[in-house]
């Protein structure tokens, strides 16, 4: 977990890095709590090869998705029905949301979600708010396979 967290954290500006790290810490603390009390949901997902180390990585990826990638990508959703896909948006003096931006962030989003999918992580795991929600989602996946 530490390596993945560090790679992602080091690639971020200071203010957003802090938010990312706080969410990582929050999610992992919840996992540690469930671990200490021998939570049944945790025991169950572990039996399906979701070890503590792997879950910690998943939590880091969830934090990155929610704090960084998903909000950025929300500015570039595909659209057909209005002017928003053809007119660039100038936000303050610092940023332009234009076609180049939309292409780049959509590519990053798609690469990330395809990457985590190859690791057995669905987008549903990334969009959950709390560690227990993530465990619940993994559990639902196992139910589907039973």
């Amino acid at each position, binding site marked *: 977990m530490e390596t993945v967290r560090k790679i992602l954290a080091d690639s971020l500006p200071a203010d*957003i890095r802090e938010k990312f790290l706080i969410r990582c810490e929050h999610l992992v603390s919840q996992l540690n709590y469930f671990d200490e009390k021998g939570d049944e949901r945790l025991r169950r997902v572990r039996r399906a090869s979701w070890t503590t180390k792997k879950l910690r990585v998943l939590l880091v990826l969830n934090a990155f998705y929610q704090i960084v990638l998903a909000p950025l990508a929300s500015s570039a959703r595909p659209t057909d029905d209005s002017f928003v896909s053809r007119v660039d948006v100038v936000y303050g003096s610092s940023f332009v949301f234009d076609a180049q931006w939309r292409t780049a962030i959509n590519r990053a989003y798609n690469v990330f979600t395809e*990457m985590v999918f190859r690791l057995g992580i669905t987008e549903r795991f990334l969009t959950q708010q709390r560690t227990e929600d993530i465990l619940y989602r993994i559990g639902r996946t196992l139910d589907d396979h039973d």
Partner: protein
Amino acid sequence: MTMTEDEWLKTVEGMVRQFARTHGVTYAKTERVVAAAFEIGCFHSLVEYYAQTCDVEPENLKDGKFKYLTTPNGNPANFSYVVIKRKGREYQLRQQVRVRSSIHTDIAFTPDMVVFRTGKKVKDHRDDDYAKGKRSFFYVEADDLVSFHECKCMNPFPELMVSFLGMVFAAFPWAKEEDFGGRIDTDSLHLAPSLFVGGSARGLHLRMVKALKVSFPVNIILGMHYGTWELDRDDSDLNRITDA
């Protein structure tokens, strides 16, 4: 073949390293830009919603670009906005325009997006208690508003949702009336004041979202980070209000 834990961890480290190397220049943005991106995503979503049933066009473009007002201190006349036309009626969708309450003129706040009937004005005046009277205080009267919307790039929590009600009550005296002044209209074009939230919810928080929607003239729209986008889809079941 299933990977061992060590193989899985090595694989993810390699993938993430490659991802950061290739795409870091795209996603390494400050908190302000990330929040702006989310707000623009919500703005796009609302524009798309109106575009399903209305003529929707940008106005006051600068060099062909939509100049987004990012702070209530800016003069709205210098920024772009959206004009919404339907059946002879015309509305404006603007960002970051201050709203002055009709309950007391000293109560003013700035939602992320406002909708009002064209012909109603963004007013301005100078006040010694604002920038020492050197800059104009821009605002729209709450009575002139059709609706307003707020964007929060975070996970939902009870206090966030309840505090949104404060904005609604401060702006609209009818929101405290028993039948909300007869404003709720399922056939109306306009969404009731809506809180767009990035994250999702489960369990009690989800029940609270539903309870707020049936108890007050508001919408709490969750999951804006990833999938809610289509505001007019059949299962969205959002509150709508008249423009009376």
